[in-house]
């Protein structure tokens, strides 16, 4: 018989307990702990990339038209469905999503675990389409601007180029720059301010990543 813990037990009896006295003493989380989500609606551009990448399906949004014809978008994060993987924050080009070190997330009533924010998304003021490198930029449909959601995608606004390389649909594009950032060949240049979308044909390898990642389905191949 062997009692390896005899010494341990006796010495511990006379030493201070190693307890973290949490409810009585604050216990801050470690740096970079991913806790409660904070959403900054003022910077959100409603690209919906976060919703697309969310594994747990925790992110949703509603949008209502206000009297100006603008969309009032409410984006909510259900912490009760979140895996705190940080992917949404990672993908958010505008850094609107942030995972804080606050871990006090207790839900007793409905809504306790919902983080949400509302912002107004201005309706697009029909800027002149600037087909940078898309010769087949079909001007046929000048989009009625009525529904924000493409309710009639019957005919694609932009014809595919046919060579496998991407083409932009300016009516859908919100210039979020994800395609540019995700392009493995760095063939895309997107300028949000100037609303420019440019493809460097030499660098493009027609991999299709940009179309894949586009949250608005504004790229056709």
């Amino acid at each position, binding site marked *: 018989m062997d*009692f390896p*813990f*005899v010494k*341990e*037990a*006796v010495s*511990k*009896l006379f*030493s201070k*307990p*190693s*307890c973290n*006295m949490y409810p009585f003493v604050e216990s801050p989380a470690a740096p970079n702990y991913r806790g409660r989500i904070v959403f900054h609606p003022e910077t959100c551009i409603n690209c919906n990339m976060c919703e697309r990448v969310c594994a747990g399906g925790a992110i949703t949004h509603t949008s209502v038209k206000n009297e100006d014809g603008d969309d009032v978008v409410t984006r909510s994060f259900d912490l009760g469905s979140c895996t705190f993987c940080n992917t949404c924050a990672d993908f958010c080009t505008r850094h609107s999503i942030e995972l804080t070190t606050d871990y006090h997330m207790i839900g007793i009533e409905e809504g306790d675990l919902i983080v949400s924010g509302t912002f107004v998304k201005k309706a697009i003021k029909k800027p002149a389409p600037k087909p940078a490198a898309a010769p087949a930029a079909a001007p046929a449909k000048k989009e009625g601007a009525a529904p924000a959601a493409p309710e009639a995608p019957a005919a694609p606004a932009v014809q595919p180029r046919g060579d496998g390389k991407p083409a932009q649909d300016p009516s859908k594009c919100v210039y979020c720059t994800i395609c540019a950032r995700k392009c493995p060949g760095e063939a895309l240049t997107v300028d949000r301010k100037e609303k420019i979308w440019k493809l460097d044909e030499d660098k493009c390898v027609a991999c299709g990543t940009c179309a894949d990642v586009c949250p608005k389905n504004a790229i056709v191949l």
Partner: protein
Amino acid sequence: MTASIFLNGLQYLGYILIFPGFLFCFLCGMLLTGIDRKLVARMQKRVGPPILQPFYDFFKLCGKETIVPAAASRTTFLMAPLVGLAALVVIQLFIPIRGFSAFSGMADIIVILYLLLIPALAAILGAAASGSPYAGVGLSREMVTIIACELPLVLVLLAIAKTVGNAMGTGLCFSLSEIARYQVENGSLITKLSMIPAAVAFAMVIPGETGSHPFDTAEAETEICEGMHAEYSGAPLAVFKLSHAVKVLTMTSLFVALFFGGVGTGITAIDGVIVFALCVVATALFISFVHAVTARLKIEQVFKYYWTVVSGLALISLVLAWYGL
């Protein structure tokens, strides 16, 4: 005449209900388990529950709903904990506190031996009455633990009977109060060479009888859902918890009475405190410490341990006592 009978009756009732009966058992037993839990926690480098935690547990359980499973035999199921508790209190009444015992004369080692069976038996029957298969496994283990503890306990008690009997010139002494008196006059039994192995063996029996680590196979909450108590809820469970607490008190105070009976001053109140202090020490050493440094054994290991190591020690003591050492 009637007045004196009435007063006598009142005194008896006082013994049974207050000291050293129910109230005393309740308070001291709970306190002992509280201290035990605290000490175990401290040995594991934890803060541990407050010492009054067993009281909280008890009152909380009293306030819970009692569920009697449809498959259970209702009366047995509900009565079993009460019988067990009553039997334990009766044992406590017999255990002398340095010469003072509430009911001397009828206390006898063999009676104690059998009375110790009753709480376990009550728990077993209650478990059997619940109809749960977990309780079935638990009661089987409890029964084996009883068998395991019985042999060393018998040997220890016979050795004591022989030692005291030798010294008293009667050859044999089964009476607890006699044993207590002998110790008051001649010093504690632990000072005798032959009694040292017996004391060690008895100390090893304490965790087995009280069902604490590492011999708590019968109530193994992680493997068989609390075993015997799997179907108990509410007040009956509270009574079981109380019984366990009283059993801790009973076993430790029996240990103190048998081996440290000579310690004390002669004033009952002070002796009571001293005995309780000794009980605390015994609990700390034989229950808490053992709990902290061991892991649960398998039931056949429990049996083997008791029938070899512990019984061996007790046997050595008996042989020594036989030859008058």
